[in-house]
């Protein structure tokens, strides 16, 4: 396997322009001779499907939801970054580029990140033209707010529903192309495998989730826009249906999987309240501006929080990080919360939670001010927990919510399988070891609107229309494999439900490959996961049949892939013997508990090649070269 990043030569700021000129074009009249399959209709997939159809390509778009509008991009709250410098506060493309590279702890590709910053401005223009109702000032211009990891105000937002509004923009553009006949949309269809013909990705096999039909689709290229794999932890802020299957199946067919251990844990989520918990809900990080985080000083202090006097409270972030206090960065605050809970000082019924207390802020600023700032968040919290945060401290705990790792792609967003392109959260490219707030929406739309429509043309122009149909023997073969797998799942007829296996895997991943990792724990996980997987294939209970809607069967297929993927994540975490960004190896920290990066040995992307189930995958390396920024240590002091 060769990892050729295909980064264009020349100065950083000119690479993308030069590359656009160097790429081959397809004459408008010939574009209709090419068909692309796009899996996933979130910001990346929806934007790509619409933009490519507008150019004249035929698009087959797939999503597992009942509408393209329901992809999980819709849940993003905060905003989208762009280097517009509308606030005249010194922002620039270069600054957005630098903040993103630094935020990613110097583990991303300079050229990709620079291109992202360059097209960020076009994204905002495009979205406004589509009718996205961004927040405005009284003068009629766009409003901005500031976000973590930046000292300028460059975040555009639509109330607390920015992801929803951007997705509706892409979805509407997509709907227009469906009406025009250029996009054929398959909702409630799940991709179950990838089909390669002569080494090139030329199609997929799907299951119609209503009828159970296993269907094959052929095209000239396949684009995966299938999001992240945070649900490997079972509990995460992802939607219930988010899964790794499409990406994992592509990996099994030969696509390299890059940096799977880079998973971001968000510090402020509503904690787990019981064994029945199905997902976790994020509370905006902005709450930490006025809330103070604490736990009781002693274990087994079961008093009501309001009855615990000041001297018995431990404001551990303020104590450990006096200068940053409650605003310590995401990874630090997440890990500290875990530490105090591990010591037995966690709060709430399950002991996995810490208080986020607003009483000081309310006394200082008045209830009205706090309500103006956080009213909707307080309401959301009360709806879920039944507690009133104005009078009782909130309880929060970290949760998995974004994955920086993904399928390896080159500068053209093409994976190691020719013709297989990967965009949005599904690829690994732009966030390095840690993603900054308001950058996920930016990357999804950049890939979908402004990168893939160009780079796919270059691939098409070089290969020509394939003329392959689903009659090709490869399609028959993969179709049968998919069918066999489903038959197998339905025939085991064991005793344990799918969810019990998923929870068991989630616990192992969270315990040993979650917020902090160490060698012994990862090795333990690598022993435990294959055992769970074995038991799954012997004792899972999947009811019903294939020929109807069958939600247990859908889940079973996804969990089966997570049970293999979890092992890959642990291998990556084990072999990356340094701490960087969201990947914290306990062996590599300073006395104060800060991450210690090892640029000498690990300034690279680790891309894994599948070698067989239960076998150790093969690790390949793409060295990262920093020509424009200096590698520095992130400091929080």
């Amino acid at each position: 396997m060769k990892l050729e990043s295909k980064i264009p030569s020349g100065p950083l700021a000119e690479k993308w322009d030069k590359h656009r000129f160097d790429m081959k074009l397809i004459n408008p009249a010939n574009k209709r001779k090419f068909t692309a399959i796009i899996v996933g209709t979130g910001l990346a997939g929806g934007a790509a499907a619409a933009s490519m159809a507008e150019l004249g390509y035929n698009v087959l778009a797939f999503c597992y939801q009942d509408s393209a509008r329901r992809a999980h991009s819709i849940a993003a709250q905060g905003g989208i970054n762009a280097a517009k410098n509308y606030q005249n506060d010194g922002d620039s493309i270069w600054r957005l580029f630098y903040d993103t590279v630094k935020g990613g702890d110097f583990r991303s590709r300079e050229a990709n990140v620079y291109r992202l910053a360059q097209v960020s401005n076009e994204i905002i223009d495009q979205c406004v033209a589509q009718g996205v109702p961004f927040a405005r000032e009284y003068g009629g211009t766009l409003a901005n707010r500031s976000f973590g990891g930046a000292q300028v105000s460059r975040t555009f937002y639509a109330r607390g529903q920015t992801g929803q509004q951007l997705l509706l923009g892409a979805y509407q553009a997509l709907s227009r192309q469906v009406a025009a006949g250029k996009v054929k949309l398959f909702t409630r269809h799940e991709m179950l495998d990838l089909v390669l013909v002569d080494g090139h990705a030329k199609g997929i096999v799907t299951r119609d989730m209503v009828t159970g039909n296993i269907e094959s689709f052929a095209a000239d290229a396949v684009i995966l826009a299938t999001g992240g794999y945070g649900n490997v932890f079972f509990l995460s802020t992802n939607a219930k249906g988010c899964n790794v299957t499409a990406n994992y199946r592509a990996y099994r067919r030969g696509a390299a999987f890059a940096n799977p251990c880079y998973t971001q844990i968000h510090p402020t989520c509503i904690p787990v309240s019981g064994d029945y918990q199905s997902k976790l809900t994020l509370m905006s990080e902005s709450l930490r501006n006025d809330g103070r985080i604490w736990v009781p000083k002693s274990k087994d202090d079961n008093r009501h929080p309001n009855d615990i006097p000041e001297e018995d409270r431990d404001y551990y972030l303020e104590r450990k990080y006096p200068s940053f206090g409650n605003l310590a960065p995401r990874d630090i605050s997440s890990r500290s919360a875990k530490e105090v809970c591990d010591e037995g000082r966690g709060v709430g019924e399950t002991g996995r939670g810490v208080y986020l207390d607003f009483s000081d802020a309310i006394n200082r600023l008045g209830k009205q001010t706090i309500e103006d700032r956080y009213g909707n968040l307080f309401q959301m919290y009360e709806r879920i927990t039944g507690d009133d945060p104005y009078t009782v401290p909130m309880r929060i705990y970290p949760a998995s919510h974004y994955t920086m790792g993904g399928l390896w792609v080159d500068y053209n967003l093409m994976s190691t399988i020719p013709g297989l392109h990967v965009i949005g959260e599904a690829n690994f490219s732009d966030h390095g070891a840690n993603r900054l707030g308001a950058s996920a929406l930016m990357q999804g739309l950049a890939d979908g609107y402004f990168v893939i429509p160009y780079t796919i043309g270059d691939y098409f122009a070089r290969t020509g229309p394939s003329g392959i149909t689903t009659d090709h023997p490869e399609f028959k073969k993969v179709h049968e494999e998919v069918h066999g797998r489903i038959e197998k799942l339905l025939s085991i007829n064991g005793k344990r439900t799918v969810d019990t296996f998923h929870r068991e895997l989630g616990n192992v991943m969270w315990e040993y490959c979650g917020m902090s990792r160490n060698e012994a724990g990862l090795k333990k996980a690598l022993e435990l996961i294959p055992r769970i997987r074995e038991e799954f294939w012997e004792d899972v209970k999947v009811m019903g049949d294939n020929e109807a809607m069958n939600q247990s069967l859908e889940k079973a297929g996804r969990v089966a892939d997570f049970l293999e993927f979890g092992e890959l994540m642990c291998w990556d975490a084990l072999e990356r013997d340094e701490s960087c960004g969201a990947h914290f190896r306990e062996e590599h920290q300073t006395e104060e508990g800060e991450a210690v990066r090892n640029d000498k040995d690990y300034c690279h992307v680790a891309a894994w090649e599948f070698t067989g189930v239960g076998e150790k995958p093969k690790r390949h390396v793409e060295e990262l070269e920093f020509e424009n920024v200096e590698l520095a240590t992130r400091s929080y002091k």
Partner: protein
Amino acid sequence: MNLTLHVWRQKNAQDKGRMETYEARDISEHMSFLEMLDVVNEQLMEKDIEPIHFDHDCREGICGMCSMVINGIAHGPERSTTVCQLHMRHFKDGDKIYIEPWRSRAFPVIRDLVVNRQAFERVIQAGGYVSVNTGGAPDANAIPIAKQEADRAMDAAACIGCGACVAACKNASAMLFVAAKMGHLASLPQGRVEAERRAERMVAQMDAEGFGNCTNYFECEAVCPKNISVDFIAQMNREFMKSSWRRKRK
């Protein structure tokens, strides 16, 4: 707490369907309604009964996937709340709960509580967009938009397309859904350009799908999890009248 559930079970679109009764044991007040159903489903599977199928995804009230009528009310008893954000503390031990799918000719049942909402898709495809291609857009600040206009557009754009408005309406009217999209786009200069054409086409598609008409009961507004105002229906009617009047003059 322990509850008795009466749940609509229907194997597929052809099946006639019926209510079935199940006991829900040891339900915690902190569970969401869907988590309660998860627990019930695990219990059913232990007894070799196939789990209750229902649509859900984000479970944080924004994707619009979840859709069920609880004790006769779309999304259940809490106002401005999707089913996934409804919690069991609003019920008490011994309660009988009736759970049904959205009921409307335009939303045929796929299985149990899962319905087919493709009719909404076709209404959006008929004109629920601004006709611009990717690329070449003017600078985002080129056209100033008054804050109150942008806010009004956002009020309408908050619609999650769940279909509760249709399920609650005795006419199975989709007017709140359609009006929300038209109101969102017509409130902004970018969408204003084709507002009349959009009104004509979306209304025609809405009728073709078999949705009923509005007779001003406003049940839709009462169950809308995003508080979309029926004012947008008035605006839609105005837009539609204008466009049909103009068409007649031609």
